[in-house]
């Protein structure tokens, strides 16, 4: 049975092409195996290149995500939620997610929103706090406010899966 399961996961990993499985990248803590799929990102990507440009491409998105994760970890309200998280993996998967949704040329290999936020105890006030931290990071990067909100409109429906049930 366990052999069969391993085989399935090997199969899943090989489906993603060459490289390490998404749950065991070098330098990251391991997570329970899962099947990578862009649908796990929780939103469909924007059409065209406009949003990727507004966010200054992959470099800009990486700066925004790094700033957001660092600021969230240091935040007096939501810092606790990030305290025991693998920041290396978190930055990578959020970068992939944002990059995928902004149509900046990435695939998302992280877990889905319900699985990745399970048991974190996130309340509505935490979600809104994170939105404000992200808004500051986008403003620091020089992303226009209207483009910020367009992006947030893709993230907003994820709240259902993110909140503690």
């Amino acid at each position, binding site marked *: 049975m366990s052999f069969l399961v391993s085989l399935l996961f090997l199969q899943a990993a090989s489906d993603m092409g060459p490289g390490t499985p998404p749950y065991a990248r070098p330098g990251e803590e391991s997570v329970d195996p899962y099947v990578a799929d862009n649908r796990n990102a929780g939103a469909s990507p924007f059409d065209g290149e406009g949003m990727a440009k507004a966010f200054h491409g992959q470099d800009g998105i990486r700066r925004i995500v790094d700033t957001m994760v660092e600021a969230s970890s240091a935040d007096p309200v939501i810092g606790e939620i990030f305290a025991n998280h693998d920041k290396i993996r978190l930055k990578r998967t959020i970068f992939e997610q944002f990059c995928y949704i902004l149509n900046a040329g990435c695939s998302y290999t992280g877990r889905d929103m319900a699985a990745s936020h399970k048991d974190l105890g996130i309340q*509505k*006030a*935490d979600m809104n706090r994170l939105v404000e931290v992200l808004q500051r990071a986008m403003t620091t990067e020089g992303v226009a406010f209207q483009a910020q*909100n367009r992006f947030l409109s893709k993230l907003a429906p994820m709240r259902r899966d993110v909140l503690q049930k």
Partner: protein
Amino acid sequence: MKFTKSALALALTGIVLAPQPSAARPLRNGGKLLLTNGISSLEGASGGGLTPWAVIAGNETSDGIGLSAHGTLVEVKDYDYQSAGVAVGFRDRIEISYAHQNFNTNDIGTALGLGKDYAFSQDVIGAKIRVAGDLVYDHLPAIAVGAQYKRNNNGTIVRAIGARDNEGVDYYASVSRLFLSRSILLSATARLTKANQLGILGFGGDLKDSHSLQFEGSAAWQLSRRLAIGGEYRSKPDNLGIAREDDWFDAFAAYAVKRHLTATLAYTDLGSVATVKGQRGIFLQLQAAF
């Protein structure tokens, strides 16, 4: 009417006391996004300046209790108006509000035979329930229903000018949504009312002495986290033969000075008020919310 009020109170009590999944957790106050609690409308309900929105007073989420307090000044051509009030929000679900309104007739008071600087005043107690949806998140827009009990303190005068009563109840339903993809907030309200100029000139009149259905709306464009600009419209009944009543308009800018303080400046057109037309001027409000 008595029955309606007790039924409403009973329903409110039921909702507050009903066990909720989050009730096991300690209360946690604050947490709304900036500006999403709205400002305080003239009658005290959270929303725009002229009309309620389907949002609940205070900065709390469904995990807490919130509070707001406001002071409003309106200076139009011949009159000035002040109101002040407080509102409490329970779990971003139920809002209870109180506002005291004061309307000064200045020199027109003399012309109307009331005496210079004669002032009308009114107290408004409101209740609002967000029955479904959310302003920002989820599929459904925020949907709320509410009632406002208004008591005019100048009963003799308002009856003398033709009003049938010095107290009345408005009933309303609002739908509000912030469309993030466009940074635009739209809100619409349908109101059943007998009030003449909010009730400042009493309720009902020689032309009509029953509730009529009125429409109100707000549109706002969010320019930054802290700043939104927009416009509002409010249709009005026309119950009094001697004093025509016009629909209201405004154009506003609301700015979150700090997390707990919102300042609103508007240019407003109230049309004809108490027999004198062309009442346009400035609306200014400071609101503190926690």
